[in-house]
């Protein structure tokens, strides 16, 4: 009996979404009176024993080179093998971009029920029931897993990274691994920027900004907040901003702590991608913009005047010059 957490890495470092998964998995272990263990696949560039601070007792580290690139099939086989060997009855991973590829494969491989995109800790008294968002954030469902092994993929930003202290025992593990069938030809990661789906604060611009040349005010505000930048669909479609910044029904769905929407009217398709944000601030010169109905705070005003002032006021608060 144990909880096994898959730690997804980028350049050998655990992703923030995986630290959330570790904290969440450790809490489930505490809740059910079992131990939490972690799996890391591929080379690590950090001290894995330190993952113990999130509450895991043991880290299984598979260092075979084949895991230095992502192949959902190989990763699945490895996690399944380690889960079986360690007798895990709960497997936790992040519902991040790699997690979405691995979790369903694991579920089918182990015939273990999956709750994809969990937003709550499980109820474990009788049935194992976990809450997830459905209807693009407009509702939630309580999903019961009816199999002996349960798999939960945790939505990014749905559970806080929690340090409880401690050091984990790192165990070198080997698994049967074939050659990867997927060859990673290139990885193109913008360095120094906050990944949109992991960002705690997101500053987003819409058509109200009138053109790509005006994005400086969005970027300045994002910089002072250490935020990721995003945009609405018309902005991406007009190629003012790259498609990987598009949030909404057909772009990315995000759930940051703070979402600041500038010059975005708030069509229902846009809201579907951002309505899980904890705090929503809307800046729009149209007092009738539907977005105000979904917002926590709002300013009716001209973005070109309001946003630079806001940036300045936040800079003052944070004491940075």
């Amino acid at each position, binding site marked *: 009996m144990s909880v096994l957490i898959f730690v997804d890495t980028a350049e050998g470092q655990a992703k923030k979404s995986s630290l959330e998964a570790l904290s969440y998995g450790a809490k489930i272990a505490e809740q059910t009176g079992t131990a939490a263990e972690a799996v890391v696949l591929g080379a690590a560039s950090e001290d894995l024993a330190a993952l113990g601070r999130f509450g895991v007792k043991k880290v299984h580290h598979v260092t075979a080179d084949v895991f230095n690139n*992502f192949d959902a099939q190989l990763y699945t086989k490895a996690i399944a093998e380690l889960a079986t060997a360690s007798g895990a009855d709960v497997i936790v991973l992040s519902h991040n971009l790699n997690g979405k590829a691995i979790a369903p*494969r694991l*579920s089918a491989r182990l015939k273990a029920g999956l709750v994809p995109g969990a937003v709550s800790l499980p109820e474990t008294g009788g049935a194992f029931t976990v809450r997830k968002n459905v209807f693009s954030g407009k509702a939630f469902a309580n999903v019961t897993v009816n*199999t002996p092994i349960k798999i939960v993929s945790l939505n990014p930003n749905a559970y806080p990274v929690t340090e409880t202290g401690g050091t984990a025992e790192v165990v070198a593990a080997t698994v049967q691994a074939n050659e990867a069938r*997927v060859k990673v030809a290139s990885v193109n*990661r913008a360095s120094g920027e906050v*990944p949109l789906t992991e960002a705690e604060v997101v500053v987003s611009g819409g058509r109200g900004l009138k053109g790509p040349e005006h994005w400086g005010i969005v970027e300045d505000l994002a910089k002072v907040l250490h935020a990721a930048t995003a945009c609405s669909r018309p902005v991406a479609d007009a190629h003012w901003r790259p498609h990987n910044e598009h949030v909404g029904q057909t772009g990315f769905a995000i759930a940051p702590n*703070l979402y600041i929407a500038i010059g975005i009217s708030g069509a229902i398709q846009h809201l579907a991608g951002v309505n899980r944000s904890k705090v929503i*601030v809307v800046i729009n010169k149209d007092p009738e913009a539907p977005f105000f109905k979904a*917002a926590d705070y709002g300013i009716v005003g001209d973005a070109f005047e309001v946003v630079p002032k806001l940036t300045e006021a936040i800079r003052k608060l944070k004491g940075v010059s």
Partner: protein
Amino acid sequence: MKILVCISKTPDTTAKIAFTDNNTKFDTAGVQWIINPYDEWYALVRAIELKEKDPATVIHLITVGGADAEPVIRKALALGGDEAIRVNADSQDSFYIASQIATVAKEGGYDLIFTGKETIDYNGSAIGGMVAELLDMPFISLAAKLELNGTAATLTREIEGGEEVNEVSLPIVVSAQKGMAEQRIPNMRGIMAARTKPLKVVEPAAVDALTSVTSFGLPPAKAGVKLVPADNVEELVRLLHEEAKAI
């Protein structure tokens, strides 16, 4: 080249979300059904583009659902595709649906199986990966580009903060997202042609679902927006810092 595109029917984006039977069932009264946008705009349209390049390509559509799913699958056929298969079963959970699709796909010998990146109702992102595992095929998730050169596929998939280019040999399963193709509107010729395209109904394989939805609920309503005057951004900063503790 044989392509299978998985099609799901979902409530229209603007549909009112409500539940009945003590919050255990989605209230379908007055709901307009559409093709899940990711299945339609990205998966199906990319498949059609591949067929336009190579007319020998055969596209099959598959859906798991009752007879009420047929208008939606006809609409998909109006966009393109040669024939459709409906597995005559109410969907139970992702594994149940994926198992039905995998059973049909095993017989069909497809080179490429497409799903949308997720449905806009269950938001599971699970079907493609499960089908791939059941068929022992590679799975490229959240792909924004796909190019074929014979049986060699080159795909671009999203990773945190960037993208990754993958090379893989067919057969594969792909979940498609924005970037893969552009939305199309069916034309009159397509709509007429769809009426006579074959729509095969098959009975489901015996599979046990792994999960069940115990109940649904609606998130608490927002308290309402607090408006701050445009000439007092300091007040907004104070509220975000002290009240919302968001900065």
